[in-house]
Every structure is written in C-alpha cells, then in structure tokens.
C-alpha cells in the first residue's frame, strides 16, 4: 500500500538540524562568557546520548539508521548540557543523559511517544538527586577575570581535582541564586541587585547568553521550525507572573525584566517548551501550555525548594497536555462556534 501523495522536502532530520544550528550562537556566547568548559560537556553529552540511543534502539528491535540520523538524541543532549552548570562532573552529565534518553525517551516508547521532555527529565533527576553539584556555576569571565582553560576544565570534569583557591576563583552562585539569597537575608531587591553579579538587564554575562539564545530562537521562528504561540505565551506568563509579584511588593520580588533575561528562560521559551512531542498541539492549547509553563516557572522560582523552576514547570505542563489538547479542540471547517449545526 502506498499513499500516493508526494511528500514534501522537509524531514525530521532537517528540523532537528535547524534546532542544533540555532543553538550555536548560544554555545558561542557560552564559551565567550564562561570559558570553553561547555564544549567538553556538550561533547560528552552527545557521545553518551548517541550511544544510549543506539543501545536502546537495538534492545527494542528498531533499525539504527533512520533513528540515529534523525538527530533527536543529539538535540536532547545539547539542551540538557546547556542547562547544566558548565563545570559539572562527568558522571553528572552521563547520569542526566541516561535518564533523559533511556528513561524519559525509550521507556516511554521512543521518539514521538515520550510524554515528558527528555532533557528536562534528565535535569530534574539531577537537581533532585545531586542539588549540591547542580548549583556550582562558573562565574562569568567579566567578574572572575579568569576562566578555566580547556585542559583545566577537562581535568575538573573528569574527576581530577583543582586547587580550592582556583575553583573558588571561578565559581559563584547564579544571579537567580544570589537574588534568592539576598531576599532571604532580608535585603530588598534593590540592595541585592547592587551586588556585582547583576548587570543592566539580568546577570552579568548571563544576560548576553540569554540574548544569544534569543537570536537562535528567532532564527527558528523565521524558518517556521517553531510557531510563535509557545515562546510568546511562555514569555508572557513569565512577565505577567513576575510583574504581578513585583508590582505587589517590589522589595521582595525581582522585576519581570530580570526574569525575562535569565538564560534559562530564553532557552526554555524557544528550544525546550517548543518541543513538539511533549507539548500541546492545538493553537489554543499551545498558548495555554506556554503560559502555564511561564507562570509555574515564576511560582516555583519564588516559593519552591530549588533555585530554578523551568524544568519542573515544563514537566508539570507536559502532564497537563492531554487534558489541554482535549479541551481546546479547534472549530473545524463548517462547524459553528456553539457546536455542530443540527443535521437538516
């Protein structure tokens, strides 16, 4: 049986390749701002992901070629790698990628069947299990004045130790963490934001990383790889929720602008929440999905037990997708708003 209609030129591989390409500005900014460690993380994650994907495909009796070449495993690996602290130890990266590919993707039935975003499952597993390692961020070059060389990074990542002083020199809490700490120390937002890590828009360095992700996201949007609904709704959810809190008590809650320019928000808006497999599919559903993820992100950031809430927000909304899709079925051709016309 052949379906006669000729398929167009687009393919899953092309879509995934575009997503990878659109991540390049972000990666470049990452290297520029935090040093070359991210390249090691990316490489390790990619190798692990492809190996795990191949092993799972073989175990499940699927052919390797079409599925490995669809690049979806590489996309998952890159997204997870970019969410991790740049100096995360190798076993952390491997554990996260395995959780993403083996558990979140293949145990749920492989590409297209995973109800949760694999990269975010990997992230969630890591932050729940190893919160201490997950909060060791490298400080931006602009503040630390020095960054680890590729060699030093490799040594650190693959289990070697570095002198404590050297490590302390390059690591610092993320702006989000710092804000949270400051607020808990009864400092107001303004006082906290006077600390050196905060720049004009978000965190020093971090804000430029966010901008780089924005550039990649806009490329994807221009290429019609992603729609406008999810990113816009997600950002709207962030701004609205953060804005409401900020408006209610500017001294206790960070400004929407600050949240807006967190790199995790940009990455999530354009690359993670837009994952079609685990996201909503109807036009209105996409808006609800994005908006809900945005609001939840702020809620979890503000009151949750972990520093960032993007991963949990997206996983929670993933859970709600079947419900959202079912309740937002669009009007079909020839159907009136209130339902079908009675048959004549």
């Amino acid at each position, binding site marked *: 049986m052949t379906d006669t209609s000729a398929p167009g030129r687009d393919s*899953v591989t092309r879509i995934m390749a575009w997503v990878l390409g659109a991540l390049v500005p972000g990666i470049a900014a990452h290297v520029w701002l935090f040093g070359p460690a991210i390249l090691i993380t990316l490489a390790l994650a990619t190798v692990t992901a492809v190996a795990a994907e191949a092993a799972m495909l073989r175990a499940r009796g699927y052919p390797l070629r079409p599925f490995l070449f669809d690049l979806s495993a590489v996309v998952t690996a890159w997204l997870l790698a970019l969410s991790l602290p740049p100096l995360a130890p190798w076993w952390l990266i491997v554990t996260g990628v395995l959780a993403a590919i083996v558990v979140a993707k293949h145990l749920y039935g492989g590409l297209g069947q995973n109800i949760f975003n694999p990269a975010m499952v990997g992230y969630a597993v890591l932050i729940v299990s190893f919160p201490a390692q997950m909060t060791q961020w490298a400080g931006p070059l602009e503040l630390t004045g020095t960054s680890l060389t590729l060699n030093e990074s490799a040594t650190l990542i693959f289990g070697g130790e570095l002198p404590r002083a050297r490590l302390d020199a390059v690591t610092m809490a993320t702006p989000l963490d710092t804000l949270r700490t400051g607020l808990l120390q009864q400092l107001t937002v303004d006082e906290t934001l006077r600390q050196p890590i905060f720049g004009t828009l978000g965190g020093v360095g971090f804000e430029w990383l966010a901008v780089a992700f924005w550039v990649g996201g806009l490329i994807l949007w221009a290429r019609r790889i992603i729609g406008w609904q999810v990113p816009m709704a997600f950002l709207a959810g962030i701004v609205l929720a953060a804005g409401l809190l900020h408006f209610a008590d500017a001294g206790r809650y960070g400004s929407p602008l600050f949240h807006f320019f967190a790199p995790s928000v940009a990455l999530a808006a354009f690359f993670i929440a837009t994952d079609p497999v685990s996201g909503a599919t109807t036009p209105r559903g996409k808006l609800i999905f994005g908006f809900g993820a945005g609001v939840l992100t702020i809620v979890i950031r503000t009151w949750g037990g972990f520093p960032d809430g993007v991963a949990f927000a997206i996983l929670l909304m993933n859970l709600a997708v079947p419900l959202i899709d079912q309740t937002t079925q669009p009007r*079909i*051709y*020839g159907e009136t708003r209130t339902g079908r016309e009675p048959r004549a």
Partner: protein
Amino acid sequence: MARELFRFKGGVHPPDHKAESNARPIHAAPIPRQLVIPVRQHIGNPAKPVVDVGDTVRTGQLIAAADGTISAAVHASSSGTVVAVEPRVLPHASGLPDLCIVIDTDGRDEWVERTPLDYRAMPAADLRMKLRDMGLAGLGGAVFPSAVKLDAGPAQICPLLILNGGECEPWITCDDVLMRHHADDIMRGAAIMRHLLGSTEVLVGIEDNKPEALAAMREAAARLEFAVEVVAVPSVYPGGGAKQMIETLTGRQVPSGKLSTDIGIQVFNVGTAHALARAVLHGEPMIERLVTVTGHVLRPQNFRVRIGTPMQTLIDLAGDREGATGVLMGGPMMGLVMPNSHVPVVKATNCILVQSRELFPAPPAALPCIRCTRCADVCPAELQPQELFRFAKAGDFGRAQEYHLFDCIECGCCTYVCPSHIPLVAYYRYGKSEIWAREREKRAADLARERHEFRQFRLEREKVEKAAKLAAKAAAARAQAAQDQARRVAPATDAPATATPDAAAGGTGEADAKKAIIAAALARAQAKKAQSAPKNTGQLSPEQQRAIDEIEARRAKIRELARKPLESETENP
C-alpha cells in the same frame, strides 16, 4: 472586477507540472477494439444491465439503466457487439473485479438517434430524470449523479451557481484545456444549470495559473445574455475543492454535515457543465470525457476518450516510455494507484499519471509522529490530523469519529508536509472503511437479534397455541368417548324403544355425520394448504420479498432449463 476574495485555512503549494500537458491541443483518441464499461461508475446504486451477451448495440445506446434516484445510466461508448457481462478488474484501488459490459466495437461508430431536448419547455423533474438516464455524473472526481445535484430541494431555488474551474491538483490539465477550447459549451451548460436551479448569480472560479482559460472563459461569458463573473482565484492546493472554492469566492463555509445547497450555493465542475450541454443540446449521453495523460510519457497531452477505453491504449498514444513504475488515476495528491495499466477509463478518470522513479521517488521510510502539527497547519478541513492519525493507528475509531474523521476530504496536504513521511491519508482511509464495516456489522447484529427475538416470541406463541389445540382435542376426545359410552349403554338397555325414532333421528344423524366428515376433510385440506404455504413470509420487508422473488424467478428458470433438454431429447431421435 475587484471582487473580494477569501482565503480558506490551510493548503499547500506543490509544484504544479501543468505546462507538460496543457500546451498541446485536444486529440480524439481512436475507438479501441474492445470497450470495458463498468456499471458502477458513480456514487450510489450501480446501474442494471439491460443488454445480454450477443446483443448488438449502437453508440449512445442505453446498456445499463439507472437504479433508483441516486444512480446514473450507462451507455455504449461505441457501436458493436456485447461479448460479455461479467466482473472485470476496475480502475479502483482495491483491484477487485466488478460487473462490466464488454463490447467488441465494429469501428463504424453508428449512433442511436440523438434528440436534443428543449429544456426550457420541459418540467424540471422530467428533465432531471432524462439527465439521469443519459448518465450525467460529476466529472470533477466525486462522480455524483448530476441529476440529484440539479435539484434545488423544496425551495426550488439556489441563488448562487458556481462553476468550478479550479484544477488544483498538480499534473492534471483536462479542465484547463476544456475551458480554453470549449468555453462556449461550458457556458451553455451553465445556462441549463441556472435554469434548473433558479440561480440569480453565476460565478466561475479559475485559478490564476491558467491565464488562457481565464481569457477564453471571460470571452465566452461576454457573449452570454446573462451575467457570469469569471473570477481569478489564487492557486493554492486544494483550492479546487468545492467547499474551498465556495469559501474563496463567498467567504462562507458549508456547515459540517450539510450540503452547499443548504446555504443556497451549488457547485459544478466545468467538465460537467460541458457534458450537460452536450446531453441537452445535442442529445449525447455521457460516453466520453477529456483525460490528461501525463507524467512519464513522451508526449503528455489531453485526449477526448470514450468511456471504457483501456488506459494502456492512451499511454501508448502519448508515447510509452521505459521505466514506468505504476499508473495513478488522478493526480499525485489524491490519485489512486491502479491495479494495472489495462483497466478502462471511467467517468471519474480525469488524469492518467504514469509514474517513474525519477518523477515519483519512493518516499523515505516513515518515522514516528513528532506531533509538530504541520499537518494541522495545512489541513483545509481544519482538523487535527496528528490526533486522527494516532486514533486510527491505535484502532480507537470512536475517538477518531469524535475528532471528525469523516470531515476529512483526503486531500493529502497533511501527507505532503509531514516531516516524518507518514502516509497519513492511508490511515484515514483505513479508519473510515473500518468504521463503515463496523457499522455494517452492527446493523447485521441488530437485525439478527431482532429476528431471533421475534422467532423466540413466535415459538412461544406456537407452543401456547399448540397446547391449547391439544387440550381442546383431548377434551373433544373425552366428550366423544363419553358419548360413545352413552350410546353403547343406551342401545343395550333401550334398544326397541329407540328403534322407531331412530329412523327419523337416523336421517338427521346421518346427515350430521356426513357434514362432519366433509367439514373435517375441508379442514384437513385447509391445514395442508396452510402447511405447504411458504413459511416465515409474514414479516418480510420489500427488499426481502424482492430477494425471494428473484430466487423464485431463478428457480423457475432452472426448472425450465431442466425441462428443455429433455424436450429436445425427445424431439431429436
């Protein structure tokens, strides 16, 4: 001229491949040696053959009559001899055989008498019956009997008539060249349609990638005594779909589950209008049509083809080439794969598209759906194809129906854009026919349940009646026995005393007895009659009665046949 146009949702822009075939003039294909004419060429009941093997027929002669309202007659496409009335493989995706009338042509092409109709003088209902008997059916692809569509319903008026010159499928150009060369006939057909439907406005929608057709139609429109607006519409696939054309031209959508006439609009393909004009003004039944032969052939072009001509004949005329991998009837988006290239051209055959590896490379292996919703973006029926696919694949047909599977027009846009190369439409066709099959099964089960329950009820009733009868019989027997005994006793004791009255009484008694015997015999005969009367005939519906009648007729024939050889045997020696 600045008519406001509306953009329907969805659609795609595949390369149109029109230039290959639309530049050449229309060629009349020669009449083949043998015509294979299926009786099932349209939607609705198949036509019933009215010719037998051995009959000679003339061009345009009725060979199968329309059966019921939604049906259309079938005619001999050329003169010759009927050599078979038997199942042959049809131009259908199933490759299954169905009843066809096979005619060996005599090459003379002698027509039956053709009588033009004065449509203005005829009552509309009569004219429609006439059109049905002339085999008129839509040539746009759905092959719906035109007579039905030309009925404007109880209101007897359909304000807007649209002629659909939107030929959006790639490769196909038969409507394009028809409009270029026969614009006047099309307009004459439109006039008849306008008359039958009581339309006040006539629009012709033609895509802007057919400038020659637009010009020709505009010229023809200018020559008419009524206003016809020829509108250039954007070339978007499937803009030539009736519902899409209506939305493009009027901005209105046909309500789901309703007909376009419910909102006062009727749409006809330009080819149908042309055929209608030929039928009414020239008395020619539908025995030929234009067919685009294109794709992997040397000279892609359009032919005027008699219905029943084998497709291979046309492919040979257009120049057969090495490396053909298959034949499609229709375009690449909605066309059907033909079981072989020798199946006949039917009323639905607008295009014969010869495939090759270069023109139609095998699609890459399908990957799982990633729910990217590109299919939803292009779906002109505004469905959620990815969900329909999921349900159809999982066999969850109830949900598929909830998500409006039956509103899918199988246009193939979703398959065209799917980055995972999933043959989506194949899943929808599978889902639809599964649902139909299940409904058939359900109806059959309901019928069986009903009949079984009725039988249980009948058996129960019969048992009760039988018991009552037996009881009555037993009572009678007892009474008889008592009487006999009384009699036996009476004569013994009182024989002489009754002797004299006995003579008198004997006369009446004897008469009574005789009467009783006759009555009993009558009753027996009646009972016998009742017994031999067909059983189970009380609850028959007309169809069942008809089925039985047919069986009886066949039996009579068999009996006759069985007798005949005997007779001949007795005669011969």
